[in-house]
């Protein structure tokens, strides 16, 4: 389900998604794209190991959320490539700043965010608090 930039912005503002969440999902998307290319199995295992490290149990980023993220498409990869030019330290912040663009190109990032245990909990609380 594609989302417009405005919808993505509105979702991010409403849910107060932290920057760390944003760039981690972008990194997962980039990693999944890289894994689609031909490479030695040793490197492939390392990339998959990075994905495994990203998922931290049931706190916020679960394995199901990573599984829901689609690989970055060509346009997204082009943006990510330009961002990587600023250096590895700053690139993460810029990933988070441009998350809207990534999410509009790859709606699975928002889908993954909606699968977050924290989001579900808040959603459940909100539904229970709402007047019947």
């Amino acid at each position: 389900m594609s989302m417009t930039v405005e919808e993505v912005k509105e979702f991010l503002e409403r849910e107060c998604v932290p920057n760390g969440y944003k760039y981690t999902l972008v990194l997962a998307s980039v990693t999944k794209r890289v894994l689609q290319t031909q490479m030695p199995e040793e490197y492939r295992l390392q990339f998959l190991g990075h994905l495994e490290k990203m998922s931290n149990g049931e706190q916020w980023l679960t394995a199901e959320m990573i599984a829901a993220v689609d690989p970055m498409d060509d346009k997204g990869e082009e943006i990510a490539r330009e961002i990587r030019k600023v250096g590895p330290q700053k690139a993460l912040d810029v990933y988070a700043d441009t998350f809207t663009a990534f999410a509009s190109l790859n709606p699975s990032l928002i889908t993954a965010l909606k699968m977050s245990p924290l989001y579900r909990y808040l959603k459940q609380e909100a539904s229970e608090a709402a007047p019947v």
Partner: protein
Amino acid sequence: MNSLAPKRSKGKRRELAPLEPVDAEDGPKMKALPTDRHRAFVRNMYFVKPGHGAAVKAAKLAGFGTPSSTPQSMATIASRLTHDKRVQEAFAEQDQLYIRASAPRAIRALTSLIENPNAKDHARGIAMVLDRVHPAENTLTVKHDATPAFQNTAEVMARIAALAAKFNVALPAPKVIDAVANEAQS
């Protein structure tokens, strides 16, 4: 007086013992030269005084040219000889012989050098000898495991497959070499 003493007869002079035959033979390259004059030219090149005109002198001693040959003619003959491929190969062969023949003298000179502590290159001579007797050794241990770790490879592939399934990663198709599989006969 001693002078009056009868002279002792010297008797018959002993004959010189015949020299042992020296079976020194020319090498194949020297034998391959067309004439004895060529061989003589090659040998003379090692005896004439080195410098300008040495080749001409060696050629003259070997019998090349005539008494009426001009210096220019002799120079041409000498040049042709020294640049002849067969002669040059003979030079290379003779070089080896002379160098090897010089080895005992070189060793003797080296021995003299290391036995003279006042010699300028005494320490260098000692170092040369020690380098040849006890050369510096570097030990490099290389462990090469040529055993195919099929089990490890299978484990890695299984781990990759498991992680890829867990994170819903679409892996590219493995590279397959075009071949026709034939069933082995049991």
